[in-house]
């Protein structure tokens, strides 16, 4: 039997955006087993709900993660609104949808850059982040912050996008779409990129479902699960189909995310055309009493929020199950059998957001 070596991967690694540790059991350049180890960035945010009252907790929920920040605050607000049965105005729903999709475009562009960096293609990484700057400008112009939006509150939203600002957003998005097409062409057609991605880390259709994957990782293996189809916020009135691929390898996951950028830009156009006028928020009185499960679609997959209130101004329980937490078992399974040089690429294809995973 060949000798087995254990090589530690992470928590410090040039390719990882956030610290995760994997013990790779290697036999002559082939990874036989991978044992994950998380907990480097555990902040115990779920317990903080006992100290901060529920309207203030939006600011903590927003800061669970930098990239998925807006959808965290949206899910939290949605949960409280469902427990307290607040009639959120439709304009607020549409604005939340628009901001959520802008944050999805931002997240996928950021991830495309990191993917190129994982393969060593630094110039493509810089170009992807150059395109991302344009999206960050849209976000700053409409919400005031570049990464943490600070625009969602229990009962609605805090800021408005008026007609002139909306026209500006759509114009910038058209430019972003044009520039994204240029870099997506390289991601999907370049010979060296395809050599690194095709056939690597294939996740079979049945395995992906049984391991509990979510998001683009699941959709790249042929399933059409997209939590946006539940119809929360304004998604009931927008028409779109989940993007899927069947191969389940790294190339398929990259292609799904590239297509999702264009799908999000289309969704923003649809929402901007249909957005009604009206109030931005409804006044909140009283305390939440009851429990709810909220499921929304973050850029990385389905996030589940469990909120339980007991009539006081502090929630009794706040539980978040983020998509990367659900994708880690799939990562561990897909690492078995790959070669050591493919490990960084594979780890990046599930889009690891470890600060979300460990809150």
């Amino acid at each position: 039997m060949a000798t087995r070596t254990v090589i530690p991967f992470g928590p410090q690694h040039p390719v990882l955006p956030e610290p995760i540790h994997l013990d790779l059991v290697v036999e002559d350049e082939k990874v036989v087993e991978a044992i994950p180890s998380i907990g480097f960035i555990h902040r115990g945010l779920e317990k903080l709900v006992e100290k901060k009252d529920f309207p203030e907790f939006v600011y903590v929920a927003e800061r669970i993660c930098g990239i998925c920040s807006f959808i965290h605050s949206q899910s939290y607000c949605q949960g409280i609104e469902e427990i307290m049965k607040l009639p959120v105005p439709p304009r607020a729903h549409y604005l939340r949808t628009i901001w959520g999709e802008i944050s999805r475009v931002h997240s996928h562009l950021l991830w495309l850059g990191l993917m190129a960096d994982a393969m060593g293609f630094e110039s493509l990484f810089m170009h992807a982040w150059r395109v991302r700057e344009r999206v960050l400008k849209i976000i700053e112009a409409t919400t005031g912050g570049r990464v943490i939006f600070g625009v969602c509150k229990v009962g609605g939203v805090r800021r408005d996008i008026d007609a002139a600002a909306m026209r500006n957003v759509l114009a910038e998005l058209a430019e972003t779409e044009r520039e994204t097409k240029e870099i997506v062409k390289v991601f999907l057609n370049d010979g060296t990129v395809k050599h690194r991605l095709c056939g690597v880390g294939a996740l079979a259709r049945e395995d992906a479902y049984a391991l509990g994957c979510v998001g683009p990782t699941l959709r790249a293996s042929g399933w059409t699960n997209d939590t946006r189809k539940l119809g929360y916020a304004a998604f009931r009135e927008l028409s779109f189909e989940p993007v899927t691929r069947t191969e389940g390898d790294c190339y398929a996951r990259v292609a799904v995310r590239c297509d999702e950028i264009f799908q999000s830009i289309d969704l923003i156009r649809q929402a901007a055309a249909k957005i009604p006028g009206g109030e931005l928020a409804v006044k909140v009185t009283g305390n939440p009493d009851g429990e709810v499960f909220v499921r929304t679609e973050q850029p990385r997959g389905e996030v589940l929020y469990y909120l339980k209130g007991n009539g006081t101004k502090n929630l009794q329980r706040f539980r978040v199950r983020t998509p990367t937490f659900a994708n880690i078992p799939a990562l561990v399974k897909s690492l078995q059998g790959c070669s050591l040089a493919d490990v960084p690429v594979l780890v990046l294809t599930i889009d690891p957001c470890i600060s979300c995973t460990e809150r």
Partner: protein
Amino acid sequence: MSLFSMTGLVMKWLLRKPYTSRYPFEPRQPLAGSRGTLGVTMAACAFCALCAKRCPTQAIEVDRAAKRWTIDRLRCIACNCCVEICPKKCLEMKTAHGIPTVTKDRETFS
């Protein structure tokens, strides 16, 4: 399978001015709605301490007796809650972002 799909992009940007700006020689112009640092007009302040109560990070401290208003700049997350709640409208959110500091002290106004 093409090996030169990046060439177009490379040539285009070789002939253009670089996208990165030469900060700090060319400081960045913030956008109109940006949330940067908090500014206060002490002449209008009534020391009601509503801003301190509303602040989610407890960055503001108001001493009614000594007529002092302090802010911990590094704790402030620029969420704009205090600006919205102030009844005298003496707080404003400036668009320029804060200057980097090396000490953690509180800024006092009176």
